[in-house]
């Protein structure tokens, strides 16, 4: 790993004792039973990972690809046989359908809209109808992903009208700015506009970088001129984005990202080459910052994505888990193909329950390791709250994905048995179990909403509710 982890403790240390403006920090540090109930806020987050875990592999429990979740098993409820077939929308890619339906229970509604709100937003809207305290990011959305095209592949927090609940922060630095920069509301036009301007500037910078790089068509003299221009843009960028609006007490800005972002991350759906180290370095920095935002109570709702639905990467590198070599990733060579056909995505399409599926297993195992990395950040000593439990235990954290089988030739099979897991939400849901629910996602989600004390439900209003009480504590 190129960077060390970032925790609340290290972050506080790094700012040399400067008090960060945290309204709940003092309360969080007080271990008082009487204050406990009041001091533990309601939180709801979704952790999404792409491509899913085929239902047959889920039956192996923590002995299979779910192994990395075992250390957190007591704090998770694994839900098998959850069906998302209602999210199928004719003519739309099943990756997209399944991902959009994840914890919205609805099929997509256009390119950039879900069919309804996501679970975290239903809770947020219900419990904070007047909005969150102004120091907080209303909905924090971040992720490490590369596949683009449709928003539902990577954004997993949607408002009631199906539009995205916040702007995706796809670089650790962007997420950092969102948390420690100027504070705005969900619909803050300035914040949104700034994000778009940033995107425009990023595209401009990428162009200048290319023309000063090794493959530039320019000669040395002209390249130097463009390099000079790029330096001026950097200066401009610094002035406009790095200096303006920053919380004066915020920690140092994290290092810039080295992996592809924006359009470069998804060259026409053909996939990108990336090493395991590059991928996990980027993700873990993102995960650290996101977890820190939760620990510092800068965010209570939102979603974080580790690899998009239908993700297309050609991964290389040795994969080890707890000192044991699991696999050597080399997708393109192992597929003996290039471009999109050489991506890890294809292992899902080639899934065959009669075979070992070694490559798919390795990828899925690695994803669980990284999901567990994030979850464990909310379960470490820094994350213990006033009631003596960790944030992981106190929050409603849903872990979702897109499909239960990678074979595209049968939608019903593909969208059935989709892996789900949730945390206890401060004692509301069972944990430490693996349940075969044999239920529709919509019923599971609505059961959770009700249990959280939130109003409203997902899906058609006239649909008869079928509570899934098996999940309740």
């Amino acid at each position, binding site marked *: 790993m190129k960077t060390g982890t970032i925790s609340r403790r290290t972050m506080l240390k790094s700012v040399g004792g400067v008090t960060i403006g945290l309204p709940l920090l003092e309360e969080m540090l007080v271990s008082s039973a009487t204050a406990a109930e009041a001091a533990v806020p309601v939180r709801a987050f979704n952790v999404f990972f792409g491509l899913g875990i085929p239902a047959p592999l889920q039956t192996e429990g923590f002995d299979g690809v779910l192994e990395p979740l075992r250390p957190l098993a007591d704090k998770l409820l694994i839900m098998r046989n959850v069906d998302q077939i209602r999210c199928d929308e004719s003519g739309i890619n099943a990756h997209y359908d399944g991902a959009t339906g994840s914890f919205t229970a609805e099929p997509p509604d256009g390119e950039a809209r879900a069919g309804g709100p996501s679970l975290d937003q239903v809770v947020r809207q219900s419990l904070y109808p007047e909005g969150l305290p102004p120091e907080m990011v209303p909905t924090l959305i971040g992720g490490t992903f590369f596949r*683009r*095209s449709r928003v539902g592949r990577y954004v997993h927090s949607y408002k009631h009208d199906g539009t995205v609940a916040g702007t*995706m922060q796809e670089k650790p630095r962007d997420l950092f700015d969102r948390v420690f920069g100027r504070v705005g509301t969900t619909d803050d036009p300035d914040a*949104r506009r700034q994000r*778009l301007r940033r995107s425009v500037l990023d595209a401009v910078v990428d162009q200048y970088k290319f023309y000063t790089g090794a493959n530039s*068509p320019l*000669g040395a003299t002209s390249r130097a001129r463009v390099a000079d221009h790029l330096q001026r843009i950097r200066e401009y960028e610094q002035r406009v984005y790095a200096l303006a609006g920053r919380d004066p007490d915020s920690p140092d800005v994290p290092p810039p990202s080295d992996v592809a972002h924006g*359009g470069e991350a998804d060259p026409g759906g053909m996939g990108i080459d990336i090493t395991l180290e590059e991928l996990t370095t980027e993700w873990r920095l993102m995960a650290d910052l996101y977890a820190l935002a939760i620990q510092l109570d800068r965010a209570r709702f939102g979603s974080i994505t580790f690899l998009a639905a239908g993700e297309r990467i050609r991964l290389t590198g040795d994969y080890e888990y707890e000192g044991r070599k699991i696999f050597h990733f080399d997708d393109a060579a192992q597929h003996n193909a290039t471009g999109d056909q050489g991506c890890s995505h294809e292992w899902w399409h080639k899934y065959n329950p009669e075979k070992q599926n070694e490559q798919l297993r390795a990828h899925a195992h690695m994803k669980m390791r990284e999901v567990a990395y994030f979850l464990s950040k909310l379960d470490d000593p820094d994350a213990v709250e006033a009631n003596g439990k960790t944030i992981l235990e106190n929050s409603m954290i849903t872990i979702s994905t897109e499909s239960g089988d990678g074979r595209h030739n049968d939608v019903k099979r593909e969208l059935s048995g989709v892996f789900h897991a949730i945390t206890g939400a401060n004692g509301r849901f069972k944990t430490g179990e693996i349940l075969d629910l044999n239920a529709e996602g919509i019923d599971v989600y609505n059961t959770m909403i009700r249990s959280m004390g939130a109003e409203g439900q997902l899906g058609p209003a006239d649909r008869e509710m079928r509570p899934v009480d098996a999940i309740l504590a």
Partner: protein
Amino acid sequence: MKIMKRFRYPISLGSSAILLALAASSYDTGLLTVSAGQAAERTPDSSSQEVGAAARTTSGLQVVYDFHSSEGRNVEDRSRVGPPVTLQVSDENAVTRREGTLDVTAPVLIASDEPAQKLNTSIPSTGEVTVEVWIRPAKIDQSGPARIVTISQDPNGRNITLGQDGDKYDVRLRTTDTNANGIPSLSSPPGSLTTDLTHVVYTHDRSGRTRIYINGEQVAEAEIGGSLSNWDGSYRLALANEFSGDRPWLGTYRLVAIYNRDLLPHEVERHFQLGPEAAHASKLADARTQLFNNEIAPLLTRKCLECHDSYAKAGGLDLSRKKAALAGGESGKAIAPGSAADSLLWEMVASGEMPQDRPPLSDEEKASLRAWIDGGAQWSTDFIDPAVYLYDRPRGQVWLQRLTVPEYIETVRSAVGVDIDEEARKILPPDLRADGFSNTAYNLNVDLGHVEAYAELAEIIVGRMDVLEFAARFSESRSLSTDDTMRDFVAAMGKWLLRGPLNEREVTNYSGIATTVASAGGDFEEAASGIIEAMLQSPRFLYRFEDQRGDGTAWPVGDYELASRLSYILWGAPPDEELMRAADEGRLTDPNELAQQVERMLQDARAVSRSLQFATEWLDLDRLSSLSPDRNRFPDWDDDLASDMRSETLAFFEEVVWTQKRPMADLLNAQVTFATPRLATHYGLEPQRDGLTRYDLASIPSRGGLLTQGSTLTIGGDEASMVARGLFVLHDLMRGVVRDPPACVDTTPVPTEPGLSQRAIAEQRLANVACGGCHSKFEPYAFGLERFNGLGAYREIDEHGNKLLENGVVLIPGAEQTSRYESISELMDLLARSDRVSRSITWKVTQFALGRPLTAADAGEVDRIHETASADGGTYPALLKAIVMSDLVRMKQTEAMP
């Protein structure tokens, strides 16, 4: 692929064929310099080598093998372009080598060890190729085709191959429309191949036109479509066989040359007439020309001409002219061609006696001078023009051109239909003048203010656009999906805004904005707005991008690069749809098409605007906005007069250049002007109508021409300085060169007084030994302007009662004799008729067109531009057309890549 063969065979054997027969005959008897003999025969006043050097084109040459090494296994590439592609003979026993000849007597492979990188890179880059050979096949019954020249891998994979297929030549070229084996091929007609010494040329241009010439005559033509982008960079170059060893060719090689452009029919014809030895002769002559151009002429300019030009001619020696220099001076012959030891010039320089009172030549300079004299003291020109050697641009240094403020404004207007003139002029930092123009590329740098302004302007521009309506030009879809139509939309819109097709990387990059917009809940309009905003700030919008990679030589510009060059030179604006279509279809490589485009574009109002920008820059009219004369001295001055003067000159320029369509030199003496009533009164003319009005000056001998207008007369300041006015004429109309005054000289203007006019003060300076040498080269031009005061008003007596004159004697740079004039009008006529003035205007317009100072390397081409334009009437349109059609525009200087 559409094949359309057109045969014109049998070849009609004209005089050149007869000469060839003589050449072949002589060659067979071992007289290897026969082609040089031919050249001498046709041009008895020239040496054979000089003729060869002048005639054989090297433009676009990539490799040439003249077989002038008769030992060892190596066959040397003598192109001196990029890294040489040396060939190795696999079996020395299979060949017989003599000076200038390589006989292949048994199957053998003569091939490069490494991929022919410069060929495999440069030819796909230009999309054009020529393979030229002088060969003698050993027999008719060779086939396969038997490989004469090939860039390939094996019998099934090639970039290009020229081969023998029985009694015809066959050429296979790999394009995106042919297969990996270059099939369908193009063949010469049956019976066209004989066992005589033969000149064979294959050419292919970007439009697909493909031709085979035999002995200077075209014998086959086809249209082979597709691009050369699929050439395999790993293929090697070989002669006499395929790399598999099973396609041998037997015969004699005299010359093999490959170009990254298509030789034109007249060039092919000329190469044929020059024979197989011309390449070798040209190489020798070229080295001598290079020595003179790059070393000797600059050295003489810097070290000798101060005292030994046509004007000063110290000791009777004029070293600025070939004839005079070789004739010598009062001490006899100064240069003995072929022997530095016998040359007085060398003796004086070697001893340090010359340059007198100046630092001696460096050891390197002395070595160059000695080598030049010992090598025959060859001159490449009759006259050394110091102005040509003024700029010593490092070879291969190519500056990217940023859009100037007016170009940015016009580009925005043309590209998206938004008028951003007011805001752009307000917030963009102004472009500063360098070498007389503010579009000089090396000076168009960028500061933080530019970046801030470009970002702000982009936002303003997009805010004023109807983005959806604009986007509809490129896509009917409103989808944000990058899997769907967004990429196509970005590609189509980007091609228009960025003046050429986008590559995948760029499409991907800009499409990312749509992704961000989508993830923030935005819509198509917002995404399109963001993409346009990014494109408006991108390097390809703000700069005129060209692919500068190459080998350090000049390559043909690409289709879209040429389209942009045309539009910015003629309009100061981006290509329009018609020009882009022509680029799409590869039509701009056709000179006729190019000429038609120029004619069309010159009809556009933007051509007039661009010409007025030139006039503004050339005459530095922006200076007028800060004109602030001494109010005590000129109590009647009205600040609006400065603006009137600017308007006068621009209206005059438009009248002469566009309305009357007169030669550019007529700007010096056209008897017409334009004035407001205020300016007319200032000039002493009877005011006519309100506003800017045309005045006929035929009956007013003191006025008529640029130099009689307030805009240029005010260059002399309140004192009507003869130094400032004279230098303006010398520099900007004559391209004359004088040195700056020594640091110790007091340059404080001497005030006039009763009995001491400006003319009298100037004549005192001219009589001064320390000053006169230089001042006499420019102040006499200002003598004729003495009757105009500092603000351009006419008078015949100054404020002290001194009588003012209007006569003088001038030495025009490059002339051997002085010229006398008696009046203002005679001076204007003298200048208007001056070839030097006319050429200088050509030089200035060309400099503005190219956006860079011209150097010695450009001089020849500028001369050709001038001759062409003069023959076409000497008008501004004729000049622009000649510039655009020249190699200065159609070719680009590349930089050698490591």
